[in-house]
């Protein structure tokens, strides 16, 4: 962990992504959905950073803004010392070799009109990685083997595969360019538990084999705990807590993290736990509450929380939290 602090592969500073809301007859921008608001964290080479949070809190947006699949509204994304947010579209395109993404939906993320072979080969064609098509085909076969697919199936179409197999195809496509960082946006949430474990094991293997760095996005706290080294918890576009895995699970600091952990159903009947059941829904990111955005649902809400935004502050040991409870 100390090692990771010293040589960050990726540093995100004050990342913002606002989606304009247009209304009126000229479709003027009247408001913004602050999907990601002032996010900062680092990812060290070889580590897995988990990002958890409820639906709509901005996890995917964060992932996509880092890769500039969405243009960030503000902030810097420093990858190997270079600010990705400042690159020209073409320079960015060239950078994509090093940064890849795996998507949640194994149905939607594969072009139904391309064969599996074509899908995996496409990045190599774009980056002109190999001289001949034969070399590329060999590489495709190799990749398929790596992710546990039969190379002879390369002429088949995605719909002829099961969900887990499709997710492997997506992984193989991401691996084709030998990336350094992979953003995995809920790679297993659409899969059945038995398949989920296969994919997670595969991803872990690949990390070891290729020294990959992951940003692992999920809403499943048990999976994140199992798979990640450090975990950031997001709420309404902001990070409320960031901590090494064990610290977070053993002693969650932020009231939101605590309630989140207590809400997870545990596959052990009769384990009596203290539950914190949050009232109400997640507020809309277009109209976030004042002060601490969690104060409307917070069991420990204080007066100051309604007016002042808490700082995202270091608590030592690599822990950060944004909560007035921890103001010195």
């Amino acid at each position: 962990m100390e090692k990771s602090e010293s040589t960050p592969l990726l540093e995100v500073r004050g990342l913002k992504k606002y989606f304009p809301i247009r209304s009126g007859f000229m479709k003027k921008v009247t408001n913004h959905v602050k999907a990601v608001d002032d996010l900062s964290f680092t990812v060290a080479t070889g580590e897995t950073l988990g990002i958890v949070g409820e639906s709509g809190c901005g996890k995917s947006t964060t992932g996509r803004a880092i890769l500039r699949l969405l243009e960030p509204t503000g902030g810097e994304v420093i990858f190997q010392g270079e600010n990705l947010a400042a690159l020209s579209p073409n320079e960015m395109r060239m950078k994509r070799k090093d940064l890849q993404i795996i998507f949640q939906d194994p149905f939607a993320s594969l072009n139904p009109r391309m064969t599996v072979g074509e899908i995996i080969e496409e990045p190599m064609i774009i980056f002109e990685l190999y001289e001949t098509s034969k070399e590329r085909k060999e590489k495709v076969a190799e990749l398929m083997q790596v992710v546990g697919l039969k190379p002879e199936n390369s002429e088949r179409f995605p719909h002829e595969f099961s969900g887990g197999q499709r997710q492997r195809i997506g992984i193989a496509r991401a691996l084709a360019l030998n990336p350094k960082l992979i953003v995995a946006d809920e790679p297993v949430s659409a899969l059945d538990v038995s398949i989920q474990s296969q994919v997670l094991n595969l991803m872990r293997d690949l990390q070891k084999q290729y020294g990959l760095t992951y940003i692992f996005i999920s809403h499943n706290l048990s999976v994140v705990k199992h798979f990640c080294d450090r975990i950031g918890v997001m709420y309404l576009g902001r990070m409320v807590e960031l901590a090494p895995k064990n610290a977070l699970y053993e002693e969650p600091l932020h009231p939101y993290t605590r309630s989140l952990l207590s809400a997870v159903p545990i596959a052990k009947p009769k384990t009596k736990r203290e539950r914190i059941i949050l009232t109400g829904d997640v507020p809309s990111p277009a109209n976030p509450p004042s002060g601490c955005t969690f104060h409307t649902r917070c069991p420990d809400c204080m007066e100051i929380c309604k007016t002042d935004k808490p700082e995202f502050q270091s608590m030592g040991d690599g822990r950060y939290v944004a909560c007035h409870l921890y103001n010195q």
Partner: protein
Amino acid sequence: MGRRFARNPWAMTGMFLLMLAVVSALFAPVIAPSTPDKADLRARLVAPSWMDDTGKSEHLLGTDQVGRDLLSRIIYGARISLLVGVVSVLISLVIGVILGLIAGFYGRWVDDLLMRLADVQLAFPFILFAIIVMTVFGAGLWKLILVLGISNWVGFARLVRGQVMSVKEMEYVQAAKAIGATNLRIIRKHVLPNVSSSIIVLATLNVATNILLEASLTFIGLGVDPSIPTWGGMLADGRNYLETAWWVATFPGIAIMITVFGINLLGDWLRDELDPNLRV
């Protein structure tokens, strides 16, 4: 798809009916008992041979108002009708797909502009457009095809635009972007192939509509040169003989109906087959 096709009586019927027209068109010189322009004024309006008691008629479907063999004209007419239908649709398809792709992919003001253009085209009733253009430039096969082609682009443009807007948000397009694909490549490799099935369905149905429109334009005197055998032309020009020589207009009418019906059957099946929303 192939096996499902073989088991679907609708599709089979549609295909069969369409093939009648296609085979006629391709092999007209072989099948037709005579040439389409061999006229004999003295043998005009001769009844079909099977209803001619005197047994003198050698024409299976009779002859038309200038004494040409109706069957031959109908067989050769398949060429023109299919040509009109297919080529005009290709024209609107090309225009519509390009504009639709641009509007859907780039969005914003480009989209706004193109969609207003579509509104203009839509608010301008087709028949009027056709009448005016044909009045200006004169009637003729290729002009007719062009007019039909130009005025039907909106359907394709709207369809493609809508589809592109949804496909664009699909994760596989995002994935393509993530592996560094250029916009052009994304459109070509990822967007277009995925909207193609809807385009095919619409195109099929449009072929049928355009064959009918040719007939309607001929009716108001703006069709193609009467010596070119078109079903629409034969139908329109034969309407005054409905009571005295019914076959002159009836058989071309049946030819149109069969072909259009066949194309529609096929299009319907394609829609069910290619449009996953409607599949069980």
